[in-house]
């Protein structure tokens, strides 16, 4: 077994650190505000101890934390070495026996007994763990009983230690209360705090190998007579999962500035809370140094999210061809596959040439000898292409569709003869004739 111990001299957010260390190993234990233990022996094929230490330093640096890290063969020796910053067990002071006997500092009675034992040893001239180890075990047990035997066994690694269960919090929530500093609806301080909350959230998600799909930001205001509902909740359902603060903050800023403009905050803000509502797996692999396509895709997704926030989901789309002979129904909007290649060669091979622009609804025109009248304006025909494209159908539309639209069912049928006409001046138009010999302008080249 190889166990790494992170020892914090000052009380520190060990739970957060432990969560970030989930990337290294699933077997983690914590000791109340001071130590984190990570079992890395089973992961030796994934990384070396030197690599682990280097990565751990990055994690600590990101969190502005300093800790002494030691790797030992058990929880006890790694803890004692990290705490007393020594390189061998023998050179540890006698106080280290406390950590050997009770590494998670949970048994106060045991600690008192060991403290008494340590003071007795001092009187006998025993200074460190090395000296303690040289005492014959029979003498030790005879003089100090169970406590002496327990310490001895722990030092010899004869008594196994059970790892207490530790699981990361199920819900990822970051909250900040503002008890003294009062600010109202200014966006900048809110964004400032949101940035640090998002930083922490994305670090926690990164450790779990996840990305955020849905996020909720709660702005808790002081309850006054003017503000009966003090909590304003903003839910962000991202089109593409977010994995970084930069892009997400832009989306949040966009929505909050719009909302605060419409409905300003009228009482002091008491707290700000960000909660992850839904996640999805992220690519757990290391960044590809030779190909930045993944990063580019993530940035594109982030831009897409921002545009959706700005203009609405319906207005940002990509087009995909559909096998339908009606020009107006020959494509559909897609939202979920940004810049993903789709094979439409079969459809395009079967579709006759289409003009670049289509009218929303066909515009009725009159065709007389040598002229087309569009919006009561006469245009001379330069060339009338004799090729006719005939499309006819609609009666085979599904019965469900027909029953849903009994009144408009007839509209689903179509019978059109399309012509390409070149007008004087070079403008080409696309007109069709219906069975009543009426002409309609449906599109134009441009």
């Amino acid at each position, binding site marked *: 077994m190889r166990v790494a111990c992170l020892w914090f001299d000052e009380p520190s957010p060990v739970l957060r650190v432990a969560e970030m260390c989930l990337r290294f190993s699933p077997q983690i234990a914590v000791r109340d505000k001071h130590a984190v233990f990570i079992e890395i022996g089973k992961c030796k094929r994934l990384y070396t101890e030197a690599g682990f230490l280097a990565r751990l330093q990055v994690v600590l640096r990101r969190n502005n934390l300093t800790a002494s890290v030691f790797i030992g063969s058990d929880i006890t020796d790694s803890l004692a070495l990290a705490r007393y910053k020594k390189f061998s067990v023998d050179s540890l002071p006698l106080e280290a026996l406390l950590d050997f006997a009770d590494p998670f500092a949970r048994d106060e009675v045991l600690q008192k007994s060991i403290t008494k034992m340590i003071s007795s040893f001092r009187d006998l001239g025993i200074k460190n763990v090395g000296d303690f180890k040289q005492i014959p075990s029979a003498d030790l047990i005879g003089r100090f009983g169970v406590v002496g035997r327990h310490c001895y066994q722990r030092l010899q690694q004869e008594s196994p230690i059970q790892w207490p269960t530790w699981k990361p919090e199920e819900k990822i929530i970051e909250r900040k209360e503002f008890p003294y500093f009062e600010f109202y609806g200014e966006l900048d301080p809110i964004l400032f705090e949101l940035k640090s909350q998002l930083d922490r959230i994305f670090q926690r998600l990164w450790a779990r190998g996840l990305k955020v799909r849905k996020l909720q930001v709660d702005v808790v205001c002081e309850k006054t007579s003017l503000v009966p509902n003090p909590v304003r909740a903003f839910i962000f359902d991202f089109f593409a999962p977010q994995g970084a603060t930069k892009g997400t903050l832009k989306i949040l800023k966009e929505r909050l500035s719009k909302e605060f403009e419409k409905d300003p905050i009228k009482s002091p803000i008491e707290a700000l809370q960000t909660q992850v509502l839904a996640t999805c797996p992220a690519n757990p692999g290391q960044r590809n140094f030779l190909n930045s396509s993944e990063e580019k895709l993530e940035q594109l997704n982030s831009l897409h999210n921002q545009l959706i926030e*700005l*203009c609405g989901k319906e207005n940002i789309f*990509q087009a995909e061809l559909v096998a339908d002979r009606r020009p107006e129904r020959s494509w559909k909007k897609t939202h979920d596959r940004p810049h993903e290649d789709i094979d439409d060669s079969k459809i395009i091979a079967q579709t006759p*040439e*289409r003009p670049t622009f289509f009218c929303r609804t066909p515009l009725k025109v009159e065709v007389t000898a040598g002229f087309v009248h569009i919006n009561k304006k006469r245009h001379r025909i330069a060339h009338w292409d004799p090729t006719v494209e005939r499309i006819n159908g609609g009666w085979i539309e599904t019965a469900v569709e027909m029953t849903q639209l009994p009144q408009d069912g007839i509209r689903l049928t179509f019978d059109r003869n399309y012509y390409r006409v070149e007008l004087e001046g*070079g403008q080409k138009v696309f007109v069709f004739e219906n069975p009543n010999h009426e002409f309609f302008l449906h599109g134009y080249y441009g």
Partner: protein
Amino acid sequence: MGKAEVLSQLRSMLGTANSFEKKFWATPHDAFGFTCSVAKGIVVELAGNACHEWLLTLFKLNPEPLIFWCERASRIHPTAIRQRGVKLSRIKFLNSTEDLQQPLRMALESGHYPFIVAPNVFEQVPIFQKFHLLAEKSESTLFLISEKEMTPAWPISLQLEINAAPNDFSITVHRQRHGTSHGVGL
């Protein structure tokens, strides 16, 4: 010579000097073998009844870059785009009747869309200036489609009027600050 003319001449000279550093897109020829170089990182204004056809030919000649296509209302026909040899997976469409400045700025700033197409609904020079700076920074080319007259705003580097000609285009260059316009056999 008036101040405005002097400034215009100086800008033109500066543009010509910079054109040695500029990179250019592959551009289509017209019926007479005439071509007009389109630099990367500039604002281009297009007009005429065949400007979209010309633009699609340009996109076909440069098959890799992604395209951001803004419209006031959905008029361009995706099937036609695909038929002109441009893959639809390259294009992100935006339909908005609201102010297009913000989405255009975002697309320009991102640098992921080397081609950006939008209707020319802008009038103020500072807006064009901002577009010009962002386009230059990201090396994206912004094509503004005018339905009326060409704008006199100075940040626009290239103004082309492209009309339909028998079997091809006829191109009229109204302003060319970077690069050259030349014809085969002209």
